[in-house]
């Protein structure tokens, strides 16, 4: 055995079996992007439950030669590819997250004031404006729909719709959705102040009526019947959402409800975050579309906020008991962040005006509204 042979062997090993010689500049860029999102999650606390696993997913898959998102020689999916295939591609995880969300949700404020459902519908304005906007930039109809839904401010819905219509945009859409959801307290207040007068921000709303346990129990059944009859395409999301809520309100399956809210939710969140992050490989992600998605995602949030507030202004033209327009911004379904923002902006004007529970109504309506919008888009492409 000569030294030449040994050097050749070492060289071959270095080239074919180690990452360093195969590292490309675009992968380094992606690693920096991963660090940025990990920083946002850890240091800034922006939606850490999702941004941390997503950031780590981006981090892991952008090393060269890593057996994570491909298929082995005998065709079986590699580790994160398996999470992605069975969780996201098969559209399982977003629905399971909706199950957990349903188990966490108290629909009391919405049941007490059903008029706020209209605000949830009005706040979907941005979804459709963005849908048209991105079409001008050469996106296909399916891509445009998946980008538009970002403004609904509902992570699982965005992931569900994107996985169905434009899986190649999954990483960018999910990141944009969760990043802007985390930035709701920054994005919404200037728009809220711009679109309301001081007097309107001081409007006091009548205390919500008490909602009986029986009413809460029957709500998921009534809502599921109406929504699924009208938009069958939304049955996987809404069905799971209402099932989770029914378990909660029935009071007889506390263990199941607790599991859906905590253990199950946490498990699927880990797999969802990693899978979504892992779709953001340099070859797929580094082009103009993610940039546009981030730009339009923000525009989407802004227009959705405007849509919610405008809807309240229009409703106030017809209502005897006026609604505080600040709760209109809670029509985007970032629960409960946007409701909290409405409350905080409200108490700055009038420290005794407690808007939180009033804002929870449109907030929950926003969840239903964005799922309905997703259902509309799915039906459109069926």
């Amino acid at each position, binding site marked *: 055995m000569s030294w030449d042979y040994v050097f050749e062997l070492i060289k071959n090993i270095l080239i074919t079996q180690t990452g360093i010689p195969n590292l490309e500049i675009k992968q380094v860029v992606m690693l920096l992007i991963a660090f940025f999102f990990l920083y946002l999650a850890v240091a800034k606390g922006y939606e850490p439950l999702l941004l941390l696993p997503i950031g780590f997913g981006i981090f892991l898959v952008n090393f060269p030669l890593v057996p994570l998102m491909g298929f082995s020689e005998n065709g079986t999916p590699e580790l994160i590819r398996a999470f992605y295939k069975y969780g996201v591609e098969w559209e399982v995880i977003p629905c399971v997250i909706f199950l957990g969300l349903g188990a966490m949700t108290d629909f009391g404020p919405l049941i007490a004031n059903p008029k706020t459902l209209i605000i949830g519908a009005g706040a979907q304005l941005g979804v459709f404006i963005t849908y048209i906007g991105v*079409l001008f930039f050469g996106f296909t109809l399916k891509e445009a729909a998946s980008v538009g839904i970002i403004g609904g401010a509902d992570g699982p819905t965005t992931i569900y719709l994107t996985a169905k219509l434009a899986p190649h945009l999954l990483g960018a859409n999910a990141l944009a959705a969760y990043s802007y959801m985390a930035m709701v307290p920054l994005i919404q207040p200037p728009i809220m102040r711009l679109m309301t007068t001081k007097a309107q921000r001081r409007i006091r709303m009548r205390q919500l009526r008490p909602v009986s346990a029986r009413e809460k129990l029957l709500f998921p059944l009534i809502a599921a019947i109406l929504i699924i009859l009208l938009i069958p395409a939304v049955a996987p999301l809404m069905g799971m959402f209402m099932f989770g809520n029914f378990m909660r309100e029935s009071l007889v399956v506390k263990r199941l409800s607790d599991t859906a809210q905590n253990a199950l939710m946490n498990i699927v969140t880990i797999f969802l975050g990693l899978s979504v992050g892992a779709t953001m490989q340099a070859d797929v992600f580094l082009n103009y579309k993610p940039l546009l998605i981030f730009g339009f995602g923000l525009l989407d949030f802004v227009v959705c906020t405007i849509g919610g507030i405008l809807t309240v202004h229009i409703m106030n033209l017809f209502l005897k008991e006026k609604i505080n327009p600040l709760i209109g911004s809670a029509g985007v379904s970032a629960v409960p962040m946007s409701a909290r923002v409405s409350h905080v902006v409200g108490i700055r004007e009038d420290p005794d005006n407690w808007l939180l529970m009033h804002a929870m109504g449109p907030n929950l309506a926003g969840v239903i509204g964005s799922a*309905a919008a997703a259902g509309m888009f799915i039906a459109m492409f069926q």
Partner: protein
Amino acid sequence: MRYKHLWIWLLVVPVLLLSYAAGWAAFGEDIEKPRPEFSSQDGDWIARLTPRGKNSAIEIRFHVDGGTLKSIADKTYTPETHPQVDPKNFRSDFFSIQADVAHGAEAAVSVSSAYFTSATELWGPSAPGSVTWGPTGATNTALADRVNMLTVKVRDGGPLDADRSANGRIEVIVGPRDSFWGYALGTLFIRFFGIFLVLTILMIGMLLSGKVFEWIAARGRATQLPESTPALEALETVPTAEQNAAEGVAPETVAAIALAFHLNSVKTIPIPPIDDRGASRWAVFGRGKIMADRLPVFDRIQKK
């Protein structure tokens, strides 16, 4: 304070501006190009394909009256060769249809599908080999089962015959056209107002059911009150502070009883059974109220 949010806008505007040029350049991308599979059935040809902007496959049937359909192929046009032909408007692809006819004769070529609407047109080159496309003058007929049929008359060697010669074979190059922006904007309005409609129906359902529940609750309260139980009888004669003082119940005792009932109601500390005999009316009243408050919950579980 307002300038705190400025960075967001500073971030977005350049992103939009920078990507604008790249966006238009990307118009040529056709990542949803349909890939039809052809088969023949009873002398007709059928193309099965997934059109642009759809997830499910559709079928397009081709038929020729006055000739024999020989073959069909799909055509691909790029923005470089056909800048005026925007594939987005031709969601169900372009086709080259070849049929045998008598020399110089006219044949009626029809293309039908449940995917077509009354607004679908059949477009083709305005002259043989031209890169400019326009309507072929096809008629759109609604058939049963929501099928629309587009029929165009083609003469061998005529303007729609791509080989331009009366050789007993016609070749027609066409694409069923649906206006992309018409569809995108139309569906936008329909679906946006669809969400209002769905949530309005849900709102009406909830308002009605809310009224029913409020009525049931009011009725329940009304029927509960007349029942004659020792606890409820005590409700009608809630003692005043003066009466309590006269009975010799110290305010501290009242406060302690109230606290015990409160703790019991939040299930923090279980209260041992109390002998009713000799209990003050305050105690009986409080216990009656707690039982009445809990009744609906137990009632629901029993009805399960």
